[in-house]
Structure formats: C-alpha cells, structure tokens
C-alpha cells in the first residue's frame, strides 16, 4: 500500500464535535433526500399561498356577497350571481371592457414593436451604443407616478412643451388638450404607457437575442437569406419563448394595474379611458361596493386566464 504513489495523497479528517451539531450538516443531509426539490420550493410556495392564493380566494367569495362598506344596513349576505347579472346590463362595464382591449392591444403592440427594434439595433453591438442602451432602458426603471407626472406636465394644455413644439413646427394650429378629447385621451395615455414600458421588451428580447447562436445567421447568410428573412426565419422563432413570456407578463401588468390611468385621466373624459382595473378600483374605494368590485376582478381574472391559455396554445411554448 505504502509503495503506491497514491498513498501519499492526503486523507480526510474525522468529524469534529462542531460538525456534529452544525445545523448546515442536517440541512445538507436533507438535501440528499428525494423530496429536497420540494423542500426548496416550500418557502416560496407558502409565501405565495399566503399573499396570493388566499387573497384570490377571498376575492372570489367576495364576488358572491353583498359587501358595501357605506351601507351596513344591507348586511353581508350571499347574493349568488347578483353582481354578475348586474354586469351584463352595466354599460360602464362593457365600455371598460372595450377600452381595456384597446388599451392592452395597442400598448403591447407598440411596446413590442419598438422594444424589438431597439433590441435588434442594440444587439448589433455597434460602438457607442452602450451609452444609448442606458438611456433607452431608463424609462422602465422610473416610478409610474413620476413617469405619469412628467408627461402630464409635458402634455398640459396650457404649459405643456409638446403643444408648444407642435405649434412652432406647424403641426398644430393651437394648443391641444390631449386628455380632454376622447379621440386623443386614450392615444396619449397609450403613448405614455408605451414610453414607460417598451424597455421591458427591449431588455428581455436583448437577453433572448444574446442566446441565439451566431452560426445560425452565418448559415443563413451563406444560404442567401436577407435580413428580413433572417428576422422571420431565425430571430423570431428562436425568441418565441421569451416573447411569449414577455407578452404574458406585460398583458397581466396592463390589465391589472390602473396606476398610470389613475394619475393621467381617472378614466375620463367621460368613460373614454375607463378600463376594467380602474373601474374595479373605483367601485371598491370610491363607491365602497366590494362585492361588485370582486365580481369585476373575477371577470378580469378569467379573461386573463383565457388569454394566457389561448396564447400559450397558439404560440406552442407550453413544452417547458
């Protein structure tokens, strides 16, 4: 044994007392068991149960109840589908639904297109574009509140610089009240939203683009595929998963958060920028009708689920 060259190799030391009581050792032992993967998921799953699943279930049951904070006389009884029935004949609900569709479709389309263009341009790694990348990604990292007010200032009908510029350039005859005209209120809000969130797409798509092997493009070059075909045949298919995840996340965000519209228009003028999330917010916290707000939320939830399901099906990204 001693004659073997390996015998002079080091040998291990026995366990000390500290090793025996060291908690990391026990967790380490646990990590070798076959339910380790579930143990790893446990903390986050518990947290999500507490802060997501429970509130969601609570919201569901609320939608079948009478719950009006300023009308304690009505009690909090079960009312079955009353709120849902009311929704059918609620004009505001239908307007909000339509506006939500417009708001989400337009915003996602613009954000995705601009985001993709920016990502493609940045992915060319041209000298000097690193600085531009910082500028381009910046809006996404600003608070909604700040972004909203910045644009409110610039779009102000009296003091807004955009009006002044457009008038000076000659595109506009006089100052325009963007948020007072239903034909421009939604468009203006969408532009602000797109400005704020397109970098989200840029960021994710850029990450996705970096993962595409350059060999594919070389091969396509040799095959004589032009830039457009390369985009269509290589880039977009390779980005499919990233695009799908980004679109779903963004749609959820756009449908569910009323922040920006709350700051810019409060749904006005009239109902022209009223969306479902804003309507639910107002129903809950201005009319104190939590039952009806619950029903609106459930509908939004179902619509989103349906969207995600159809979308995942259509884009065939569900295979892991």
């Amino acid at each position, binding site marked *: 044994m001693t004659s073997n060259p390996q015998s002079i190799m080091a040998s291990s030391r026995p366990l000390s007392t500290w090793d025996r009581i060291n908690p990391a050792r026990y967790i380490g032992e646990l990590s070798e068991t076959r339910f380790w993967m579930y143990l790893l998921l446990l903390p986050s799953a518990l947290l999500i149960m507490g802060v997501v699943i429970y509130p969601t279930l609570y919201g569901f049951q609320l939608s079948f109840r009478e719950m009006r904070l300023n009308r304690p006389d009505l009690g909090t009884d079960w009312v079955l589908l009353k709120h849902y029935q009311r929704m059918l004949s609620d004009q505001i609900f239908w307007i909000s639904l339509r506006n939500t569709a417009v708001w989400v479709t337009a915003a996602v389309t613009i954000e995705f297109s601009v985001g993709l263009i920016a990502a493609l341009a940045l992915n060319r790694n041209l000298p000097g574009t690193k600085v531009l990348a910082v500028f381009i990604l910046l809006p996404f990292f600003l608070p909604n509140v700040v972004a909203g007010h910045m644009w409110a200032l610039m779009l102000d009908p009296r003091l807004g610089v955009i009006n002044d510029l457009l008038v000076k350039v000659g595109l506009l005859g006089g100052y325009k009240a963007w948020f007072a005209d239903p034909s421009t209120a939604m468009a203006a809000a969408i532009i602000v939203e797109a400005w704020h969130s397109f970098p989200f797409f840029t960021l994710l798509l850029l990450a996705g683009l970096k993962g595409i092997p350059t060999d594919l493009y070389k091969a396509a070059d040799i095959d004589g595929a032009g830039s457009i075909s390369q985009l269509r045949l290589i880039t977009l298919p390779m980005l499919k998963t990233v695009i799908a995840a980004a679109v779903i996340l963004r749609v959820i965000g756009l*449908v569910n958060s009323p922040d920006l519209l709350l700051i810019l228009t409060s749904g006005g003028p009239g109902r022209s920028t009223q969306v479902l999330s804003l309507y639910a917010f107002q129903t809950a916290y201005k009319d104190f009708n939590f039952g009806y707000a619950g029903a609106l939320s459930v509908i939004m939830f179902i619509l989103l689920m349906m969207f995600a399901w159809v979308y995942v099906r259509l884009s065939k990204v569900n295979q892991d």
Partner: protein
Amino acid sequence: MAVARSRSKLVLDIGSYVVLIFLAFICIAPIVWTFLTSIKLEEDIVTRNMIYIPTRITFEHYVNLWNQSGYPVLVVNSLITTSVTVLICMLTGTIAAYSFSRFHFRGRTQLMLAYLIVRMFPAVLMIVPLFIVMRQVGLLDSSIGLAIAYTSFLLPLFVWMLKGFFDAAPKELESAARIDGTTRLGAMFRIVIPIARNGLLATAVFVGIAAWNEYLFALMLTTSQGSRTWPVGLQLMVGEFQLPWGMLAAGGIISILPVIVLFAFVQRAMVAGITAGAVKG
C-alpha cells in the same frame, strides 16, 4: 454579392444608429425637460410664453421639497421596504429557481406556470384580503408587511428570471461537486450560486427597482408616515391640488436619482448576466 452584403450591412448599421439615437432622445427628453422645469422659477413655468432654457435658475424647489415632504423618512422607508423585498425574494426565490432549474419532477411545468400566472388576480382587490392577512399577523402598515405584499408579484418574476440564469450553469458542475464531497446543499451554495451571481445580482436589482417604484400596494397598505414609501409620498403631496410644478418636477428628479444610480450599477451586471452562457467553459 459580397459588396451587396456589405452595403446592406452598412445601411443596417446606419439605420441602427438612427433608431437608437432617436429612441434614446425620446427616452431622456422627458427627464431632461423635468430637470429643466425643476430649476425654473415658478413664474417661468406657469406662463403663456414657453421658456425652454431657463435664464433664471433656482434650487428653491428642491429646498422646499426637502422641507415639506419628509423626503429622508420616505426614502428610508422605501429603502427598508425594497431591501426586505429583495431579501425575501433572495431567500425563498433563489432556492425555488434552483429547484425548477435543476430537478425534473412531476408537475414541475405546471407549477412553474402557476408561479407565473398567480398574479392574474387583480391587485386592486387583493389589497383588501391582504389587509386582513397582514392585520392578523400584525404586519399591517409596516415595511415588512408591504415587502411581503410585494413578493406576491415580484417573487414569481424573480424565480423565472433567476431560473434562466441557473439554467445557464451546467448541471455537471453539481455532480462534480457532490462527488467532490459536498451535499446538494453545498453544491448549490458553493458552486452554482457563485456561478450565477451576476444573474442573481441583476435579478435582485430588477426586483428591487420594481419594489422601489411600486405605487398601488404602497398607497393602500401603508397608512402612516412610518412606512409610507417615496412614490406614495410624492403622489400624496401632488394630490388633487397644486403642488407647484417646479416642486413636482424636483420630486421627480429626486426620486429617480437612486434608481439611476442603481441602474448604472445593474446595467453592467445585467449584460454580464445575459451573457451568462459564457460560464459553460
């Protein structure tokens, strides 16, 4: 052929510059304008003649804002909330992302999808039950409670992003480590997490910025200045009535400063994280 290709490449290069410069301008123009507004006198803002470059410069808006808003307290609150959010995500999300990345167990895909879509129930209504939960556990109107509420939508994002970074680290490394004498736990902490550290950093900062900027939960779940965050403080100050535009602009500039600092920091980490595939060597 070669000439044609290099010509089209040139066209694309020029096009890229044009697009990027244009977009960069669009992106920072509002910020620059806000800054210019913040250093104008109020009467140069509320005027019928647009003043582009301020001739008279003042910093009184910043001073007033500082005195009136309780900015330091709000920022400290925001910092605490953000840090706790990031901490919770790191503690629970890192191991979850690791599990999703490393193990193929039954129901994994469904569970991952579930993590992604849990956010589909509108935040607007989750606030009330969250309120009740938070009150029951005594975390209402506290930075920790708010941070926990944030995890409801940031944790899934964190897990998904980080899983991508973990995926980029080869699985064989853990096998090697386990044979070298670590447990799976040790392999995770000694080998995989250090490899994915850029990704971890990028993800953490991403989540941190989102927490820093959040508005709706912060508005509804905090009731006192003890835990109110900066965006809410700013919005409440603006309110319906007139916070002078100059102060509002100053508030905007002040509130994006920390974000820009963090962002400059994360910019590099993110690029490094994005190219994490390079660690495969």
